[in-house]
């Protein structure tokens, strides 16, 4: 189908809205100071913490969100639709609301926090939990979509060949789902990497423990805008690597 030419105008404007701010950021970068700024102790510590926590929370998303996606896509019970909508909640909530919610649930005065008797706020685990909260829907939604389009016909065939439920899951469903899992993982990782609001509200901000790269950027811009811009650039580069390089591979997966 040939597109009406007029469609290109808003399409290009839409693209510009996404890309131009990044160019604006590039324009503001102090290239001479850049190497020193992105390799400062605080920057490296924040970068390392961000990578670790994002990887951890992506793993938690996969271990919990994967089964959740299966239940949402393949089961049938009353209230399933409501459940499916609730899963999207972190997508539409401001992250800081998520952070406050976590604080009042798992903080020292939260009912679950008191019940479990654990001190989560101000720990790296709290960062992982906050990131998991905001990133989980990305994994669940993309996995659920993949599960729906994959259909159940291959699984039915596998069952008629004598394969039990776990064998079907392990040898048919999951391999067929790998592209969906890949893109879900990439999206969840990218979201976790960029998480700010829930982290600052729930986990606080302490170098080496809870101050991830976005928190470091937010802090640096108070005192040293150049440093904030340099770290922003770092985050942009990482994000581009993740979504441009990793995602198509993950999506194409088996093909």
């Amino acid at each position, binding site marked *: 189908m040939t597109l009406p030419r007029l469609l290109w105008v808003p399409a290009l404007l839409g693209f510009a809205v996404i890309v131009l701010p990044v160019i604006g950021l590039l324009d503001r970068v102090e290239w001479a100071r850049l190497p020193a700024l992105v390799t400062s102790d605080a920057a490296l510590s924040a970068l390392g913490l961000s990578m670790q926590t994002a990887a951890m929370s992506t793993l938690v998303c996969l271990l919990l969100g994967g089964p959740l996606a299966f239940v949402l896509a393949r089961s049938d019970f009353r209230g399933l639709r409501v459940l499916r909508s609730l899963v999207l909640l972190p997508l539409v909530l401001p992250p800081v609301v998520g952070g406050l919610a976590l604080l009042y649930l798992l903080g020292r005065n939260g009912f679950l926090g008191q019940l479990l008797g654990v001190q989560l706020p101000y720990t790296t685990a709290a960062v992982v939990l906050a990131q998991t909260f905001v990133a989980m829907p990305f994994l669940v939604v993309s996995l659920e979509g993949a599960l729906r389009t994959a259909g159940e016909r291959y699984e039915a065939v596998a069952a008629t060949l004598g394969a039990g439920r776990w064998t079907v899951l392990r040898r048919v469903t999951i391999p067929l789902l790998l592209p969906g899992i890949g893109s879900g993982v990439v999206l969840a990782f990218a979201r976790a990497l960029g998480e700010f609001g829930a982290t600052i509200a729930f986990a606080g901000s*302490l170098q080496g423990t809870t101050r991830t790269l976005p928190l470091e950027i937010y802090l640096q811009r108070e005192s040293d805008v150049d440093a904030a811009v340099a770290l922003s650039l770092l985050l942009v580069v990482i994000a581009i690597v993740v979504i441009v390089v990793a995602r198509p591979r993950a999506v194409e997966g088996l093909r």
Partner: protein
Amino acid sequence: MKRMSVLLSLLLIAACTSGPEKREVTVFAAASLKDAFTELEKSYEASHPGVDVRISFGGSSDLAQQIVNGAPADVFASASPSTMDTVAKADLIDGRAEVFAVNTLRIAVPQGNPKGIRTLADLTKPGTALVLCAPQVPCGAAAKQVAMAAKLTFKPVSEEPDVRSVLGKVAAKEADAGLVYVTDVLSAPGKVEGVDFPESADAVNEYPLALLKKTGQAQLAREFAELVRGQAGRDVLTRAGFGPP
């Protein structure tokens, strides 16, 4: 006939509100000034009929960045001399900035002071969850100063990017204590209590105010600055917890 007069008066009202008489003064003020400046805005508007004061509250460095990048402000009231310098370096200040208030640190503890904190040294007790501002922001720099003066080493569980986050953590009882400004403690009655400490005198935070160039309302802006610096302003600021310069 009666209906006609109602219609006429409605038209008159409409004409008045959209008339050219309407004038505006735009003030950029540090977030900690919110209560005090909101009160001053009211008294200014009462004595200046037809003038609308619009105040944008925010972090001082954010506001400074916005002004440098062309935001239309007539007055800038900052929480730190360094952020005011940012604006001064961009040659945007009309005249010079003057300190109009000072703010000092106070220990904030949750209502009832569950950990029984009495002195600055109590903050270093093991098992006390202390939250500070990060050293990069003014309240954190001040906390660092008092620690050095008292020869104490704080081990905070978190270094927040702004003072309101510290206050929030204490108010939510997720921290046993925090170092905030006197004004912050006063702004959250019933949630937090303040504990004074003598070392606070070593870290006095100055609040400069400046008129900005490129303003179309120089006279109105000057009158607002005079209100802030005058006795009426002094009273309001004192009630909010600010000290005199």
